């Protein structure tokens, strides 16, 4: 196999592939007529996420635009560009923006329609596709009901939440989602995206996409801190959380800081009985794309082993290609080539199998 990409037949799992709704009418067969008519009557033509400006240079690979449809909209094209290139199982994280809808009834209907569309249009199209359950996080109780509705469907292997939530994700208001996910044995994936009106940066709204994208890791760090300190993993000890598309090299410094300050402020969160880094290593996984390291290979060869030492092991890392997004580094410069064969196998396959225990059920590999 080449060192920078997975190899077919190896059993590699790509945990972050983005499927897109090209035309909102694709969802109408799965919507109650009250809501499909509502979309038509109100002139709602798209919920494509504004946080991925479609033609921005980093938003999609040139070849993913080749069909003339939205990048990621065609299961056949994604098959050719992901599954036929060494990925044996692809987890779809659909970012069609139902989470920012302010009418929760409409959001509930749209999320359910989106999931049914994913099942029919994608999961049925190829046995190597898996999907994340999109939930109406506007109302965590109803989000939990959507998880319960799909829990028996083997194609859904994760619950998807967006990082720019209305309140921090550790807040107890969200706990029905974690309870339902844990009961279903599903990890919760957290992906950059606006779900409520908070700006994507902790300090306010950025002027440019570059600022927003570079700052995605900041929201993720805030969410990780919230999940640990609020005791989500104390309350749901079986729960795994996967941080998607936000880099990984920031993690050691956050763990150092949390551990250091936990010693002095531990009494605020007495339910966190272990050092935060221990909790994070036990419950949290991160996808490998985009990977933020030195651009020069020589520098990377020098720096990345140090990062891996700081991280402790590659146990937390899950391979992702992030198709069709194109804002990470070229494959030959990515993390994989700096790993030993055993570590590469862990990141490409074994960590994914452990994180998504049902992922190979009924799969072609």
């Amino acid at each position, binding site marked *: 196999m080449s060192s920078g990409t997975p190899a077919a037949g190896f059993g590699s799992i790509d945990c972050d592939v983005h499927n897109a709704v090209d035309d909102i009418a694709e969802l109408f067969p799965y919507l109650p007529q009250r809501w499909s008519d509502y979309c038509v009557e109100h002139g709602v033509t798209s919920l494509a996420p504004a946080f991925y400006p479609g033609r921005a240079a980093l938003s999609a690979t040139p070849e993913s635009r080749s069909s003339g449809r939205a990048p990621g909209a065609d299961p056949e094209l994604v098959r050719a560009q992901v599954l036929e290139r060494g990925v044996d199982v692809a987890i779809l994280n659909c970012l069609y923006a139902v989470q920012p809808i302010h009418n929760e009834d409409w959001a509930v209907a749209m999320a359910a329609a989106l999931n049914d569309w994913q099942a029919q249009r994608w999961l049925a199209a190829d046995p190597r596709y898996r999907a994340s359950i999109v939930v109406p996080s506007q109302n965590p109780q109803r989000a939990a009901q959507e998880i319960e509705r799909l829990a028996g469907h083997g194609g859904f292997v994760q619950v998807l939440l967006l990082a720019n939530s209305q309140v921090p994700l550790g807040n*107890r208001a969200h706990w029905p989602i974690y309870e339902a996910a844990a009961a279903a044995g599903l990890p919760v994936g957290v992906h950059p995206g606006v779900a409520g009106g908070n700006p994507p940066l902790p300090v306010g709204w950025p002027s440019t996409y570059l600022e927003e994208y570079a700052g995605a890791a900041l929201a993720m760090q805030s969410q990780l801190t919230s999940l640990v300190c*609020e*005791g*989500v993993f*104390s*309350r749901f000890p079986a729960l795994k959380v996967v941080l998607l598309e936000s880099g990984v090299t920031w993690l050691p410094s956050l763990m150092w800081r949390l551990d250091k300050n936990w*010693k*002095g*402020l*531990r*009494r605020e969160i*007495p*339910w966190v*009985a*272990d*050092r935060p880094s221990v909790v994070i290593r036990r419950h949290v996984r991160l996808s490998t794309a985009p990977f933020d390291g030195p651009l020069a290979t020589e520098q990377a060869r020098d720096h990345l082993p140090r990062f891996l030492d700081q991280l402790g092991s590659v146990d937390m890392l899950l391979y992702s290609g992030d198709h069709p997004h194109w804002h990470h580094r070229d494959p030959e410069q990515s993390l994989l080539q700096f790993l030993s064969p055993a570590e590469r196998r862990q990141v490409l396959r074994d960590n994914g199998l452990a994180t998504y225990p049902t992922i190979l059920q009924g799969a072609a590999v």
Partner: protein
Amino acid sequence: MSALHRHVVVANAEEIPPGGSKIVEVDGRSIGVFNLDGEYFAVRNACPHAGGPLCAGMRSGFVRSEGPGHYEYLRRGEFLRCPWHQWEFDIRTGQSWFDPQKTRVRRYDARIAAGAELLAEEERLAAAGLQKGPYSAETYPVRATEEYVIIEL
């Protein structure tokens, strides 16, 4: 503790009433003497972590929990928080309880216990779910005569 104990008078008993404390200087060492409900304890006034003036720190209880939102407040006034880093130490034993690195704890067990009563106290805390940290503040036996507080060196 060496075999040759030296008894040093450090205060009149009424100087350190229940809940009170006094920082004294003995042989160039700063030592905090505490009265917990009539029992006296002495702790070296230097945090074993970084040397901070431990005995000048806040006195509080210990907070433990069985889950998010649940707080159990134990042994009010019997824990010192070092003013430098807020790490917590048990006045009765000098044991720190903030850091559950069990493998580093045993090294310190031997010089924590001042007698069967303190050992029993540690067992009670461990049973309540507390885990020892790696540091132990230096402590000295204290005895109150009718008129004086005495520490053994």
